[in-house]
């Protein structure tokens, strides 16, 4: 590595970011910014959705049979403590240098965050509400779908926001095995010392995370209209 770029930056002024973006946005070749952005979206969205789909039944089961919760949560607590890079590396021998190698561990991290959220969310359903539903003749399934899950939405979505933001930023570590979406901009910038790709990568990833977070806040408003109604009255 040559001289620190800071001194060159002071001498030459800020790099021409826009020019670099324009040149690399859509080159038609693999690895254009547009391409990487698409990869990044796939690799972060799949774990978020898969994590939710898997955490819901696990959470429901844990809330129904309490003895199941401690051991399941314990296992995922341990999984959550594992650094992503060695897990990617160990998975390579199973799934190869593919997007799946990044997607699987991120899905497990997502479940680790969402499982307690689902259980706490279901636990936040007041007992009198549940009993009212039973008294009104709701079948267990209808009670779950129409009463308990809607009430659990705020807690589950709070967990989902954490999952969405951290998945989007974690995907970039995959660049170290050649599957990092926008993270590839970081390794490229490091191998050939150049500032614009790093800045573009960081800004795009943070922007993606903020958009995802905003969408989930919006979803919460739409799914729980009673919260606002109560506040207004």
């Amino acid at each position, binding site marked *: *590595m040559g*001289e*620190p*770029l*800071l001194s060159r*930056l002071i001498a030459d002024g800020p790099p021409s970011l826009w020019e670099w973006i324009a040149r690399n946005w859509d080159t038609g070749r693999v690895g254009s910014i547009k391409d990487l952005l698409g990869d990044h979206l796939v690799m972060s969205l799949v774990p978020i959705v898969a994590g939710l789909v898997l955490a819901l039944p696990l959470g429901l089961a844990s809330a129904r049979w309490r003895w199941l919760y401690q051991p399941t949560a314990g296992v995922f*607590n*341990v999984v*959550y*403590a*594992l*650094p*992503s*890079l*060695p*897990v990617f*590396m*160990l998975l*390579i*021998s199973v799934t190869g240098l593919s997007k799946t190698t990044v997607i699987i561990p991120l899905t497990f991290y997502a479940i680790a965050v969402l499982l307690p959220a689902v259980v706490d969310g279901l636990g936040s359903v007041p007992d009198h509400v549940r009993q009212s539903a039973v008294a009104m003749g709701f079948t267990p399934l209808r009670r779950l779908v129409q009463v308990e899950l809607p009430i659990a939405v705020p807690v589950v979505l709070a967990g989902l926001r*954490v999952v969405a*933001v*951290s998945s*989007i*930023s*974690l995907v*970039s*570590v995959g*660049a*170290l*095995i050649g599957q*990092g979406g*926008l*993270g590839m*901009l*970081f*390794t490229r*910038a*490091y191998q050939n*010392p*150049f*500032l614009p790709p*790093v*800045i573009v*990568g*960081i800004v795009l*990833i*943070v922007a993606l*995370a*903020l958009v995802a*977070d905003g969408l989930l806040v919006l979803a919460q408003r739409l799914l729980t209209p009673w919260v606002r109604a109560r506040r207004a009255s």
Partner: protein
Amino acid sequence: MSWLSDFFGDPANWSGPDGIPARLLEHLEFSALALALAMLVAIPLGLLIGHTGRGGVIVVISANLARALPTLGLLVLFVLLLGTASILPVIIPLVLLAIPPILVNTFEGIRGVDPELRDAAYGMGLTGGQVLGRVLVPVALPLILLGLRLSAIQVVATTTVAAYTGLGGLGRFVIDGFATKDYASVVGGSVLIVLFALAVQLVFTLLQRTTVSPGVSRRVKVRQVASGRETT
């Protein structure tokens, strides 16, 4: 499996500056340094903000932003800007990313203490500092320790990634092994990092068991006379 025996069975991997003991020690050193520096900033700040109640919004925003920041990008950015003459450019992002979990949990812990408990402490004639040290911190300790544990997990992972930008530690086995297609080193190094992370997790779990007051962690039955409720 033969990769594991290749890696751990090779005597060359057990000595010298790039042997397992040296790399393990480096990993521990860098992680501990970053965590200690982060604690030095985050705990006093979290106590202050939680105690005074001012600046809470900034804490929450900084925690969310830190979660969104890609670690690899931050590491590359600092190393490109400041060069690799010292380890400082790598330590700065490690510390920056370690601060928010401690800060937000310390803040939430202090803020979440039952106001009646706080008022009772003041009513008994304790000064502001005494209330903080003898009541608020012990009650908030589970959350403060949770923040430390999350931060430690984060630091161990980031230190691993930082090997890419030239930092030593266990990540070297993985990064260098991957670059030279030495898969015994990749797999062996990965297993070592996983074990290291699990050990860190275990240490913090034990710390929580031993330092949190039995009354706070509800390991003993407390009869709440005033409300007539019994909590176990």
